[in-house]
Structure formats: C-alpha cells, structure tokens
C-alpha cells in the first residue's frame, strides 16, 4: 500500500502541479484555462484523435522502453533519436527493394530495423567499453550523424526517389505491410501497437524473472558489487546498449508498416527525446511507462485542438516540460518524506526519539 502510494502520488502531484502552472500561464496570456483544457478533452472524441492517441502511445512506449533498458544499467541512451531514424531509413529501403511472401516480408523488415538500431547503438557501446567514452556525449553526436546519414541515404541518386517536392524511399509492397484494426471514420489502429505491448511484457519478464535482468539491475546499482558477484560490467553495458538500440530501431515500425510504407521527408523527429521523458515519468516500470506514454500522446494529439480555440499550442510543450521537471522533484520529496517517516517509526520502536518529536 505504501509502496503503491510512493509510486503513484508523485506523478499525480506532478500532473496537477503542471496543469496549475499552465493554467496560470494561460490566465496571464489572457486565455481561459478551463476552455482550453475543455477543448483538449473534447478533442479526444473528434475525428481520428482517439485512434491517433492509441497509435502514438504505442510509438512512445517503444521509445521509452528503449530508454528504460539503458536506465536500468545506469546508461543514459540519448541516442534513441538517431537509432530509430537510421533504422527506419535502412528498414524502409530494405523493405522497398526486396520481394518476399506476405508476413515474412514484414517480419524481415522489423528484424532489419532492430538489427540496424542495435548496430548504430553498438558504436557508442564499444567506445564506452573499450575507451571509456561517456555514452551521453557519443550518443548525442551519433544523433547528428544519423540525421546526415538518413539525409544521404534518401537522396534521389542513392536510394530515394523524387515525388513532387518530397523525397522518399521506394514504397514497400503490400506484402510488407502490417494490417491494422480499421475503425471506419475514426481511423485505423496500427497492428504493431500490439508489438509495443508485447515488448512491454517481455521487458517486465526479462527484468524481474530472468537471471540476465537481475544481473543488469545489479550492475546498474553497483558495478563493483556486481563484479564481485561474477558479473562482467562491460558485458552488461554492451548487451544493455545493444538491446536498447534494437528496441529503439522498432520505434518507427508501427507508422512505416502500418501507414506510410515509406520513409519520406515528413518523418517525425523528437520521439527519442519524448521517450526519455516518458521513461522518467514511468520510473522504468512497464506499467508506469504505459501510463506516461498515454499521457504524452494525449497531450500531443489533443493539443492540436488548442489552435481552434485561439490558444497557442506551445502551452502543451510547457505542460510536458513542467510534468517532467515536477515529477522528478515530487519523487524526491515523497522519498524524503517517507524516509523521514520511516526513521520516526523506527525511532519510536527503539525508544530513542521522544514520541512528541514531530518537529523532524
């Protein structure tokens, strides 16, 4: 009970606090916050927004899982952004240039994406293991390289083709598509949203029910202690980074195999960074991440309604920033409060502290 409260109270407080902050920002800028929030909530029922939220939740969920695996090992994989972009281009080029039977084609594309993501993540992992290069710096630089590489690969004289003013990779034939769940005018739920759910379950099992997961968490807590227990920290870094990259490689698969069937200039950016925020919000717990991804997707998609009521949509960005910041603070506050409460309780039981010592 106490554990649940310790886990759920901080995010709830953070959301409340950031809503309050945005409300104040809205009042200051002369808008009606209730009308703005109302527009956001009612937007969920409009058009395809509900389905878009579900689809987007799946995408954010995969990105956050990739980040969370790194976090478990004390690795800050900022490179999810670049890993999913490179994986998307390579997988789209691969998918558009091979002919395979239905099903196998899609599976092969997904596999290529995962392998590409892992390989892209392998570079900072190897640098860290062999040369001690901080993965924060190397993955940020790899993000820049990823952008350049992706831009090169889709040039019309490399793998891309020109479509009006857009450039894109050759379209993946229908044998490589993953069908979704059509809901008529409400849109189509990506079939690969279920891949996200499966990855979440797999992540939980791996972390909590396997020796590897235990070793990973142990090395993350203290690499020296784990080493004393016979766990090679270097091996764990390498494996964790590769896994993180492989999952990051899957981030764009729901959209590419479920809707776009190609990588083009409209490819969304920033999902990797959102994934970091979602993983923080969900405290690396598969359930928490799911809630965080849902919240993020809701803010993103329903924020589009704000333009309609004359409120600047950037308020959503303020809200997302405030949530991340305050959730970190809130966890710390609640942790300290519970630590103090624990100390008081133990103190009372041992009789070393006066029962009236509420001043602590």
């Amino acid at each position: 009970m106490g554990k649940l409260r310790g886990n759920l109270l901080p995010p709830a407080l953070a959301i409340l606090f950031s809503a309050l902050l945005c409300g104040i920002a809205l009042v200051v800028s002369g808008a009606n916050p209730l009308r703005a929030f109302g527009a956001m909530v009612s937007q969920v029922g409009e058009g395809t927004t509900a389905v878009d939220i579900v689809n987007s939740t799946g995408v954010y969920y995969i990105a956050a899982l990739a980040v969370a695996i790194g976090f478990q090992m004390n690795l800050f994989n900022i490179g999810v952004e670049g890993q999913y972009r490179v994986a998307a281009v390579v997988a789209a080029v691969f998918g558009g240039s091979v002919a395979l039977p239905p099903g196998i084609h899609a599976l092969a594309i997904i596999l290529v994406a995962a392998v590409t993501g892992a390989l892209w993540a392998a570079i900072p992992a190897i640098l860290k293991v062999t040369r001690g290069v901080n993965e924060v710096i190397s993955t940020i630089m790899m993000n820049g390289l990823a952008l350049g590489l992706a831009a090169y690969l889709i040039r019309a004289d490399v793998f891309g083709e020109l479509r009006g003013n857009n450039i894109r990779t050759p379209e993946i034939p229908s044998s490589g598509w993953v069908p979704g769940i059509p809901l008529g005018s409400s849109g189509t739920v990506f079939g690969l949203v279920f891949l996200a759910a499966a990855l979440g379950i797999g992540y939980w099992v791996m972390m909590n029910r396997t020796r590897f997961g235990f070793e990973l968490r142990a090395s993350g807590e203290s690499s020296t202690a784990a080493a004393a227990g016979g766990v090679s920290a270097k091996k764990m870094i390498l494996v964790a980074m590769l896994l993180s990259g492989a999952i990051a490689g899957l981030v764009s698969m729901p959209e590419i195999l479920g809707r776009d069937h190609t990588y083009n200039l409209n490819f969304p950016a920033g999902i990797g960074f959102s994934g970091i925020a979602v993983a923080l919000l969900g405290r690396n717990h598969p359930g928490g991440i799911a809630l965080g991804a849902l919240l993020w997707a809701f803010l993103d998609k329903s924020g589009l309604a704000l333009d309609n009521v004359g409120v600047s949509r950037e308020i959503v960005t303020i809200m997302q920033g405030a949530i991340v910041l305050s959730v970190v603070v809130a966890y710390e506050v609640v942790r300290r409060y519970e630590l103090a409460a624990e100390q008081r309780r133990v103190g009372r039981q041992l009789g070393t502290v006066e029962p009236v010592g509420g001043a602590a």
Partner: protein
Amino acid sequence: MRGIAVAAIALTSVMSMAACAKDSGGTSNNAGSSGTAASGCKLADKPPAAAASSSTAGDGTKVDGSALKVGLAYDIGGRGDASFNDSAAAGLDKAKTDLGLKADAVKELTAAPNEAEDAKQTRLRQLATEGYNPIVAVGFAYAESLKVVAPQFPDVKFAIVDGAVDGATNVTPLVFAEEQGSFLVGVIAAYQSKACHVGFVGGVDIPLIQKFEAGYAQGAKAAAPDIKLEKKYLTPAGDFTGFQDPAKGQVVGQGQVEAGADVLYQAAGASGKGVFAAAKAGNAKAIGVDSDQYNQPTVAESKDVIVSSMLKRVDVAVFDFVKAVAKNDLASLPKVFDLKVDGVGYATSGGKIDADLAAVLEGYKAQIIAGKITVSDKPSS
C-alpha cells in the same frame, strides 16, 4: 578522472571543429579577395532588351466571395515568418478585402516542426469538418496527408502550395517555377557583387530549396561566368528546424561573408532573418525570398541591406485559387506559376536596382519566357 577525460575529449573535439571552420573560412577568403579587384565581376554580354511588355490588366469583374469559408493550414513558421507563409497570408488578406471574405469566415492553423503525419491530417480534418471550403494547405509537407484526407471530403475544394496529389480530383496543385525567379536574382547578385563572390543559404537541404539554389547559380553564372559561389544548407533533409533557426542562419551567413561573399541570397524561411543580420554586420548585401522582404516589418532592422527579393507569389496563387473557387472556374488557374504568369519574379523595393540593371533583368526574363534560356531546377553539383 573519468569526468576529466570526458571533458577533455569534449573540449578537444569542439576546439578542433572550431579550428577546421576557421581554417576553411580563411583559405577561401584569401582566394576570394586575391582573385578579383573590388570593382565587381567581369560581366557577360547583356541579353537583348525586352520588348515593351503589354501589361495585362485584371479582368475587372467583381467576384463575390462573401459566402466562402476559407481555411488555411500553414507550414512550420506560420503567419509572421516574413517569407513563405506570410506570402500565403497576404493572399488570404487580399481575398478578405477584394472578395469580401468575412473576417470570421477564415481560419488559419499552423504546423509544428517535425510533427507526425497524423497531426497534419487532424489539422486538415478539423478545417474540413468545421465547414471550411476551400482549404489551402501551405507547403508540400501536406501532400501525403491530403492524399488521405481529400477523398474523405469529396465536396471540399483543397489546394496545396508546392505540391500535388495524384488522383485526387478535389485537390488543386499550386506549384511555382522557383528556379526562374532565382535565376533573375542570381543576375542581380552578380551585378551587385563587388568581389564577384556571392553566397546562397538554404534552410533545409531538400529538392524544393535546391531549385532556388540551382536557378540562382545559373543566373549568377549567366551574368558573370567567373563568379564564385558559396552555398550552404542549415540542416540536412529530415530536420526541418532549418526553416526557423535565425541564429543558425546568422552563423552560416557570417561564415559566407568571411569567406568573401558580399551578396547573400537566402531561401531559409524564418531563418532568413539571421542571414540578413549577418549581411548587415558584414557590410554585405542580401537578397530576400518569397515575399518582398524589404517591406516586411519583421526584418525591418536589416532592410537597408536587402537589394531585392525573389518573389514567389504564393499570395497570387492563394488569391487566384480562392477567386477561382468563388467563380467556380478552377480550370482558369495556370498549371505552373512561372515568370510568364508573374507567379515568380523579383522585387525592386528599396531602389537598389537601377534602370540599367532593370533592363538587363527584363531582357533575361523575356528570354526565359520565350524559351531561349531554359533554367534547370537541379543544382549542377
């Protein structure tokens, strides 16, 4: 210890990058200043003078658009970018005054940079379900979304600036011959440059912006075959922040000025403000894009360096489209807004283009219209 190592690596890499940048800037600077005297380019033969153009006045018939509800979905930057989107906004404003559009019968929404495809679809769908018709999507990025949304609203007349949607009968493409207008400002740059060295700053390295670069380079070379050209894009394809990053524009513009270029042409959306600032700081001249930027209030502090602007008359296209919808005569719209229909052109505001240069420009323009000069829309290298 580890922290120190990391810091050291970071520092050295930053420093080596800075050194590289400085190095390359220095060498080309030397090359630029040594190669030419300060008197300007050795100019090619001027084109034959253009025949006096018979200006075609508007057809004069008053079109009533007061029954229309017009929706506009801007590209990133939106109203206020002093460039591409503002040009579309100007067309909308003209429709308000000339066609009698009611102020509350207009809705404008703006895209966020790097947003997902479904956000664009939602934006178009919002406009369509609220009864806006016609709807103008500003920017080729909407092409994929329109392919999905347009068939869902067969009665709504859509238009897309800079793009086309195959097979959708209710989508009118509004495309431009940017390379032709850029050719003319390339000529202007060649005539204005003292060092015979000009620069091009593109927002994002995508085919659309490469058309500007291609035309500019061909125009400059046509007017002065020996001219030197700097070119740089702010971000690679896929990262659209290059259209709204004035700071980056300023750094790149400054780099080109230091390399010796003294006329900078920018096709960089809202980042162009930074390029203007760099030109002003470096005593260089600048050429604007899309709108007549000399008269744009958002870049007013740098207006004295703006010698001209390549006009991409998105305003004309948007206005003509709305007018054609009001008249129910979409077939009257040109297939491509090029020099012939004044869909592209150059601005003379600010008085930096004298009569001689204007005659030269009109000569080139006549040759392009007559097909004697074909301007390629792809950069040569």
